[in-house]
């Protein structure tokens, strides 16, 4: 395994980001950081299938939604504790991704992208019709559920800690996957799937495992988010726009790079928060973000990391 230095700065930076609102006890800041951490987790996970393996999972948010619904329902109906529910949600979502992956991952390119959109929309409309899951209205927590965690205030802090932990774990996992032999297999699938199959890589297993891993972390994040919000509904949990935001973060940071996905998520949230408060731009933020995306895709398809490593070759080991 080749040595790299990415984690040496990325982890301390992330930990500092997580701790800062805790130390200053700033609630506003905590909310902002929570969203940033959520975005980082999502983009880091998507990068495993999109950046490492080269599969454009356009409806990836479906796994976030499945995890969120599963965890929420366990807490809502069976009063299962938070940690157990979110972990179970993650495992169920990963299992679904693994099974589904056996089939969908045999599609390639744009057809795969369409199929994942189809999967997301199908699951969304199915849940819209299941009455025990609240249908289109969704489910709401009884506030007493937070009493087990020392009241709503403490529960929100708890979800923040969990999100921080999850983000750090997902970064470490993604980095070690990239550096492992498994990761090398994924990258070779990205470059040439048929050639890597000939060279003895179990492409189907590798792809499905990568898909399951990239479903696991978003599902847990979904569970935490639903717990914190106290409600869940299909149009929020399976929002295709969010799915595309994830892709934009990965693209903005740099396809295939762990540090890039984290930076991309950070920059994307930053840009979004700036756009949302600017006068005039506020009403047009959708159009403006479209314009930004168009410019990135047309002129800087390799993202921030691609741009930096092109001009500063020494940064390669630091920005993996």
């Amino acid at each position: 395994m080749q040595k790299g230095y990415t984690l040496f700065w990325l982890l301390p930076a992330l930990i500092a980001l997580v701790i800062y609102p805790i130390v200053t006890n700033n609630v506003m800041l905590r909310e902002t950081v929570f969203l940033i951490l959520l975005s980082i987790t999502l983009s880091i996970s998507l990068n495993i299938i999109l950046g490492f393996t080269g599969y454009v999972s356009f409806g990836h948010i479906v796994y976030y939604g499945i995890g969120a619904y599963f965890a929420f329902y366990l807490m809502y109906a069976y009063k299962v504790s938070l940690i157990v529910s979110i972990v179970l949600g993650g495992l169920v979502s990963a299992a679904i991704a693994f099974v589904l992956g056996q089939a969908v991952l045999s599609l390639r390119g744009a057809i795969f992208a369409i199929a994942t959109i189809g999967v997301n929309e199908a699951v969304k409309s199915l849940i819209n019709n299941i009455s025990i899951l609240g249908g289109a209205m969704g489910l709401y927590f009884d506030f007493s559920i937070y009493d087990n965690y020392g009241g709503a205030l403490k529960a929100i802090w708890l979800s923040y800690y969990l999100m921080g932990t999850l983000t750090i774990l997902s970064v470490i996992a993604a980095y070690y996957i990239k550096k492992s032999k498994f990761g090398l297999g994924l990258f070779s699938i990205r470059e040439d799937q048929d050639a890597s199959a000939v060279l003895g890589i179990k492409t189907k297993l590798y792809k499905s495992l990568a898909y399951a891993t990239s479903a696991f972390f978003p599902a847990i994040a979904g569970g935490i988010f639903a717990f914190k919000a106290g409600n869940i509904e299909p149009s929020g949990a399976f929002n295709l726009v969010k799915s595309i935001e994830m892709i934009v973060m990965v693209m903005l940071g740099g396809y295939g790079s762990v540090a890039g996905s984290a930076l991309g998520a950070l920059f994307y949230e930053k840009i979004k928060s700036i756009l949302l408060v600017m006068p005039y731009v506020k009403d047009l933020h959708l159009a403006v973000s479209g314009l930004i995306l168009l410019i990135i895709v047309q002129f800087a398809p390799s993202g921030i990391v691609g741009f930096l490593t092109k001009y500063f070759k020494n940064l390669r080991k630091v920005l993996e």
Partner: protein
Amino acid sequence: MLAYVNAVISGILIGLAYAIAALGLNLIWGVMKVINLSHGAFIAFGMFAAYMSVKLLGVSVYTSLIPIFVAGLIVGIVAFFVSLYRVLNAPELTTLLSTYSLSLILIGLGTFFFTTNPRAIDTHLGSITLGYSSISYSRIIVGLISLFLAGTLYLFLFKTSLGKAIRAVSQNPTAAKLYGINTTLVLSISFGIGVAFASVSGALIASLFPFTILSGGVYELKSFVICVLGGLGSPAGAILGGLILGLLENLLSLKMPVDYMPFIEFSILVIILLIKPNGILGRR
């Protein structure tokens, strides 16, 4: 029994309108292997263009189709050079994102100007009674116009030299270029035609159902289902797929709640992709 006859007739008529939307998507995929994610935005563009011409200019929806087609063609050609020209040979992620960004821009502007309030166009045409079943005239007109458009596209693709050039490029871009075909021109025109079909279908759908600026997305997803049903890149398949979807929607809604339709549609999409990725008509 009567309900079934009604459902079949209106299913076929609506299916034809869906087919027109899908034809636009299909043509673009067939020629340049790009899934146009701004398709829904152009459908919405057609809807609002029709709405504005009825409200402001007072012309009928059907008259407005001609300027909408021309505008769609021009907008499409411009859109091609803005979003696709530079990235045509890039991996599919790039083209997906760049057409999606186009859709974000259009929908963003649309929401800014029109808000997301629902709107509707009233055609005041009444309905015809055949025996015991009644069908509104506006549906019949929409069906006929759709048939006419599909026929025209067929004649254009198979009988004119530009149409033949489009088919040549879709079969083999390099060889087409070697034979002296201006591929950039052909690609931009086919994108233009695809967008024009999307806009016209939007206008046709707007004359039947209420809509918002976000409705385009729904019909975009329907177009995906249709294209996949009939086979991506096959124009005849798009029409068949449109009819199947139209019939399915109208017949199944007699038997089960309408809310289940999207689930069935998308399950069909995924299953067809998995077992017959070239569509029902497709060869292996």
